[in-house]
């Protein structure tokens, strides 16, 4: 186990290092002169002079060779300094820290929402196997897994904001603001989790120990929740972990639609503004989150299910 953690941590370093190179190469591959774009963003296209562009090139260090720029950037981020926004001039780290709570709040709310839907739906669907309810849940899960989240968001706004005026169209601040974004983001995840819980419950309910529990006269409720659900939940936890990564992706679109002031919206806005320092920092942060979540999920899997060993065989 210790060996496995060590190996994965080593891989983590390689991956994070690779991610920094990939991010940096990406920014430098982009067509167009970075200094000129910064100048346009700062001063506007009309009052642009060649001198201003050169000034920015020198003050932003864009005149140095690419590898110098890379190590310069790397040594700064190692100290927690992500540079400053090329557009607003504010430190990027400050901007990002200000955005994290909103994204975290939205992600956790969506996760909780998806579980509140998925656990009852999955359990009922498995217990009432092949019934009317089961078919309804399966069709719902199929639609939920394929509906594009941006379309779902628009449909929810159409129904709950425009037609019925129950929730605000966009914004941040009160509890009613989070409902539509969280439902949008949680729907796809609820669909996947429902399927898994249903499949897991169906499998577990066939096991001998369930028959034995029933034979002992234990109430059906207790059999389902204490004996079956607990065992059906192991694969679900790992998939929830993997889904968290996809949740991060979803925040980009959902936050943009609902003007939710999180990291996803920051990333999209900075792409529109070609604010390279912010894009770099956001991409790096998303990638590191993603890698850490995957690592935690793999570790959790080993802890939860001792039959799984990663030490043997090639990873």
């Amino acid at each position, binding site marked *: 186990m210790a060996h496995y953690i060590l190996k994965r941590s080593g891989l983590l370093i390689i*991956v994070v290092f690779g991610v920094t190179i990939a991010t940096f190469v990406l920014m430098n591959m982009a067509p167009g002169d970075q200094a000129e774009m910064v100048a346009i963003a700062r001063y506007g296209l009309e009052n642009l002079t060649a001198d201003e562009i050169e000034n920015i090139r020198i003050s932003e260090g864009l005149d140095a060779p690419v590898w110098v720029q890379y190590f310069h950037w790397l040594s700064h981020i190692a100290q927690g300094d992500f540079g400053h926004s090329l557009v607003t001039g504010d430190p990027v780290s400050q901007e990002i820290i200000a955005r994290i709570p909103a994204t975290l709040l939205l992600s956790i709310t969506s996760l909780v929402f998806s579980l509140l839907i998925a656990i009852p739906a999955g359990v009922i669907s498995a217990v009432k196997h092949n019934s009317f309810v089961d078919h309804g849940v399966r069709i719902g899960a199929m639609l939920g897994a*394929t509906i594009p989240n941006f379309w779902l968001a*628009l*449909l929810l706004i159409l129904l709950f904001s*425009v037609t019925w005026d129950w929730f605000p169209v966009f914004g941040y601040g009160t509890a009613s603001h989070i409902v539509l974004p969280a439902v949008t983001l949680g729907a796809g995840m609820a669909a996947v989790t429902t399927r898994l819980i249903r499949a897991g419950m169906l499998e577990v309910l066939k096991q001998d120990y369930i028959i034995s529990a029933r034979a002992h006269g234990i109430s059906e409720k207790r059999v389902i929740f204490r004996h079956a659900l607990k065992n059906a939940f192991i694969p679900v936890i790992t998939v929830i972990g993997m889904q968290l990564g996809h949740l991060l992706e979803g925040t980009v679109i959902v936050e943009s639609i609902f003007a939710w002031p999180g990291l996803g919206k920051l990333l999209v806005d900075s792409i*529109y503004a070609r604010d390279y320092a912010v894009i770099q920092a956001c991409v790096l942060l998303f*990638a590191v989150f993603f890698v850490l979540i995957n690592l935690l999920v793999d570790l959790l899997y080993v802890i939860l299910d001792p039959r799984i060993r990663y030490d043997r065989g090639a990873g």
Partner: protein
Amino acid sequence: MCILENKLAFAGMVIIAMLVILALFAPLLAPHDPYVQSLGQSLIGPCRDYPFGTDEFGRCVLSRIIYGTRISLVIGLGVTTMSTIIGVVLGMVAGFHNGRLDEIIMRVVDVFLAFPGLILALVVAGLLGPGTLNVVIALTVVGWMGYARVIRGAVLAEKEKEYIGAVQTFGAGDCYIMLRHLLPNVMTPIVVMASAGVGYVILAAAGLSFLGLGAEPPAPVWGAMLNYGKAYLQSAPHLTIFPGLAIMITVLAFNFLGDGLRDQLDPRMKNLHFR
């Protein structure tokens, strides 16, 4: 056992066939020119002349959706083809020559997999600028790793089989063995992955164009239609409903086909879900 027995897969194939017909014969099937603006007839709801209504410039939404199948299918098939080729080449090389080269290729795969796919695609498409080709490049950059992994795994298993050893004793070269013997035997999972993959690519492309990254404005792109339609959610909800429906039906059709092929070609993968 035949794929036609699987109802959902059959439905998927029928829908895909219809989409291909729509794309090929768009000029014949579309009731109006998708680019012609008539401002006097903007934002009309569904009616006899315009079954799906008109947009803010008075363009026929149905015609734009029909022409939009062309862009969606080109992106879906283009990205999937390119991702498959890159994935197959790298996966085969990695699996066949395991050792240093394998280690390097798989670490590169790890790095690419470390990025949440849509976010990387968003950044690549955003930096490259608007245009269908740039969307294809962006989605290929994030799409090839799954194929490389699956192919590598399949090649690792396949090359231990006796017939490969036998061909080697006959003096066959590596390239010959890979192309002639390994490739046909590892194609099954690729076909399954690619057919569902087209759906995910179309979905991701719609997401990018919804965010304003994709083909430039007059082009009839489903995601972009949703993006412009959202300003008229109150007065013209048909601008939101129909393009979204088109995206969803297309994605579902490819998913059904992928699931059906998976059940037919490789029953062992029944519980695998690609994402």
